């Protein structure tokens, strides 16, 4: 298992290189001029040329990419590079990019965790109920709800919630900030809607699948209590695909909180990224996207490791595959 984890961690390196390369190329072709941005519109051509060479922008593309990775030496604009955990300073705020990411990421984490927890708490029991009585009225209602949840635009859910609970009922504020719990309710509900729908459908179909297996019939024939059959025999086996989906959802919640954060003016990583993209703040964009990509990959890794604990068969299958190799 340890070797497997190490190999997965090492595989992060090419993925990260690829991510940075793609994002760097995109930013390189962006029609913006950081030197011009720093100087303002009235700079003399000489000052402009000096600025470009100070910032290292007159170098070829690959040299600039190497700077980004391994550092760039300059008294004002220098930085140690991604490899050494220094992503330079933002062009707009002049703050250290990594610092800003670290201050905003916990906010996004709170939102994403809250949304995932809410989704799991509601979706798994509902999925189980739907699967126990398939095609019943209850199942139909929840199926319709899941379908709606998966088809509604996130920003629209947010606007409807703001209209209902902030503007009319005045229960929750329309703006969210990390310190105030009641202000987090609406963004968390907004964000969890889609994940809830997906997890609900997954739990239902996975439970339905398991309930038709022979060993469930055997357990029932043995005269076992239906509760025990459902929770001890069926649920544990049905949860494996649910864990996969939940893990994937958590990853996309972290990255996809963009719209929700934007609408609720929440100071998370998502709104920082969108602002950076609007302002063509290359170092901030590169840093944030790389950070999200790393988190995303680490979560996927954790989900894979988690399988081993839920289902011992997967672990043994994995060790068997390794032996064969």
């Amino acid at each position, binding site marked *: 298992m340890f070797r497997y984890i190490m190999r997965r961690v090492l595989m992060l390196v090419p993925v990260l290189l*690829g991510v940075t390369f793609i*994002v760097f190329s995109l930013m390189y*072709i*962006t029609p913006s001029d950081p030197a011009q941005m720093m100087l303002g519109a009235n700079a003399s051509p000489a000052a402009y040329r000096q600025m470009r060479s100070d910032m290292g922008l007159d170098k070829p593309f690959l040299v600039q990419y190497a700077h980004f990775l391994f550092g760039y030496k300059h008294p004002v604009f220098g930085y140690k590079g991604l490899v050494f955990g220094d992503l330079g300073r933002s062009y707009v705020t002049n703050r250290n990019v990594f610092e800003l990411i670290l201050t905003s990421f916990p906010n996004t984490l709170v939102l994403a965790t809250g949304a995932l927890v809410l989704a799991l708490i509601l979706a798994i029991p509902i999925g189980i109920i739907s699967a126990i009585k398939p095609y019943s009225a209850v199942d139909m209602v929840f199926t319709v709800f899941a379908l709606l949840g998966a088809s509604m*635009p996130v920003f629209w859910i947010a606007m409807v919630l703001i209209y209902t609970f902030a503007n009319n009922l005045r229960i929750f504020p329309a703006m969210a900030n990390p310190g105030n719990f009641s202000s987090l309710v609406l963004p968390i509900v907004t964000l969890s809607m889609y994940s809830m729908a997906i997890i609900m459908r997954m739990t239902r179909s996975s439970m339905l699948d398991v309930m038709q297996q022979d060993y469930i019939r055997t357990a029932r024939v043995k005269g076992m209590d239906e509760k025990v059959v459902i929770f001890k025999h069926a649920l544990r086996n049905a949860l494996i695909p649910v864990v996969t989906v939940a893990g994937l959802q958590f990853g996309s919640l972290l990255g996809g909180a963009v719209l929700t954060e934007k609408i609720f003016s929440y100071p998370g990583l998502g709104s920082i990224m969108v602002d950076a993209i609007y302002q063509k703040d290359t170092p901030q*964009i590169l840093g944030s996207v790389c950070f999200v990509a790393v988190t995303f990959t680490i979560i996927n890794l954790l989900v894979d490791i988690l399988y081993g604990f839920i289902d011992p068969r997967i672990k043994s299958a994995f060790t068997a595959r390794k032996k064969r190799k």
Partner: protein
Amino acid sequence: MTQSLPISRFMKRQAKNISQFWRQFSRNKLAVASLILVFVFALIAIFADVLYSYDFVTSNSLENALLKPGEKGIVFYQEKEFEHTFILGSDNYGRDILGRLVHGARVSMIIGFATVAMALAIGGFLGALAGYKGGLFDTLIMRITDIVLSIPTILMSIAIVAALGNSFFNLLIAISTSMIPGYIRIVRASIISVKDQEFVEAARCIGARDLRIVIKHIIPNITSPVIVQSTLNIGSSILWASALSFLGLGILPPKPEWGNMLSEAREFIQYAPHLLFAPGLAILLTVLAYNLIGDGLRDALDPKLKR
């Protein structure tokens, strides 16, 4: 006459297949209803100009601003004054909401189909290459796919629009790029599951070239998952486009698009909730319809999933 016999037999077989498929599909009442809805929306999109003229839904008439649904207003249009009923009300610039929805349907429809077509062409080709050729191609293409998938979709799209500039075509590129990895994976997985079967070997034995094998023998056998994926993708593409437009990175006002209508409505929902519900429900219904059709197609096309 001997020439036409196999063709007519082929057509009969096709007709039988289609009728069999339709019998399966039509059992799902929701999917059929969705198909009808999509068809109606398509008609509306095609005849948008007949229903409401484009100039009319994009020109301001501030004296009619924020009318409630069903209210009448005097419109000055093309140097004539006439009374106009705003069936779904008007927005903050006094533009007809229903008219903008109708023209927005056209934009969404084009975006949905164009992005899926682009993603299918590129992703399908790369997936086929990876699955059929294997080896270095496979490793390379799949690694790049993994890399692209580890960038959150919405950020990737935003970055592409920001990098290439704000235009309709760039929006299409941004959305289809985020769908390409999905197609690569599906096509590759399906091809791998088919390519070692006997009929492919048989084709190879009689000397068929790779391109012929892929087009004549493999592609017809992998269409089901691709069709299902494409239907679902049209829905999510419409959703993405509206999200990007909402952020101000897609179709910009005064051009009517459901996402930017909602974006413009943001400040006025307090006084005019119809601004919020009309475009939102339009997006919801369209995406829901495509999702339901996709589910229906999956049930009808994939015998393994039949319940």
